[in-house]
């Protein structure tokens, strides 16, 4: 199939917009990240953990819980919000994991 290419920049922009708008059903959208903050945040590694008995948490606080090789850890969502905290690089049950929110 021969496709005619519009020469005018506005037409090209319009064509691209149409292509995006008519992306194939079932395909994830094109990767087009938007820069919100112009630099990456420092990595969180080796963050402290406590025992269940020492945790200062209310019963109704939400946690992301994970078990690896029999070891359980809870990541309270109230400690994972905000761009400085959304990724915790961790080690659990002898595996390296990333808990993300």
């Amino acid at each position: 199939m021969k496709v005619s290419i519009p020469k005018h920049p506005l037409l090209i922009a319009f064509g691209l917009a149409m292509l995006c708008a008519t992306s194939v059903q079932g395909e994830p959208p094109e990767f087009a990240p938007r820069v919100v903050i112009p630099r990456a945040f420092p990595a969180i590694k080796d963050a402290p953990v406590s025992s269940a008995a020492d945790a200062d948490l209310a019963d109704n606080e939400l946690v992301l819980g994970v078990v690896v090789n029999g070891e359980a850890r809870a990541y309270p969502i109230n400690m994972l919000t905000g761009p400085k905290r959304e990724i915790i690089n961790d080690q659990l049950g002898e595996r390296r994991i990333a808990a993300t929110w």
Partner: protein
Amino acid sequence: VYAARVKEADLTFVVSGMLWQRSLVMQDLETKSLWSHLLGQSMRGELVGETLELIPSSMTDWKTWRAWHPKTTVLNLSRTSRNYRREFYRDPAKFLVGVASSGKARAWSFDQLLKQPLVNDEFDDVPLLILFDKETATAMAFDRRVGEETLTFHQTESGQIADKSGSIWNDSGVAISGPHKGTGLAPQAGVVSYVQAWRNFHPSTSFWKAD
């Protein structure tokens, strides 16, 4: 929660400062590749196309998690919010639990699970049990195969989770009585997500509906 390892190399992830589809874009420090948080896939850079192994996790409240895992440890950082409590799910129509694999996806929305909190389903040739606890809005997905056998579950009149052998199971997928006593179903890597975000990232997703 992802395994932070690809091609035999450990990765360290940071928040890139970018968003895609209003969702976190991660970057690994080792190769600077960019990763979609929701897809667990590298979208740009040396590792483009690589996928992180999703480790099964649960979104639940502290009381439930501690009861399931009394020996659990807990991340111990200062709070950045106080909003994420049970009441977070007061509008269940906005949330779902979903599973995705090789371009396919299936989702169980919380408002449907409120109507039917126990579902025998199947995704990607794996028979699944979906359990929903109304009080805590905890949604869990399990593989309902035990050895060679695929179990079919139902709720008893008193609301207990049972299979046809008469075994009774708790809501973390462990048989507490009957012939299967002591057996645990393998948790599957389901993700609790906003319905809208799930649709954006998995446009071909199917949705389960209560009878």
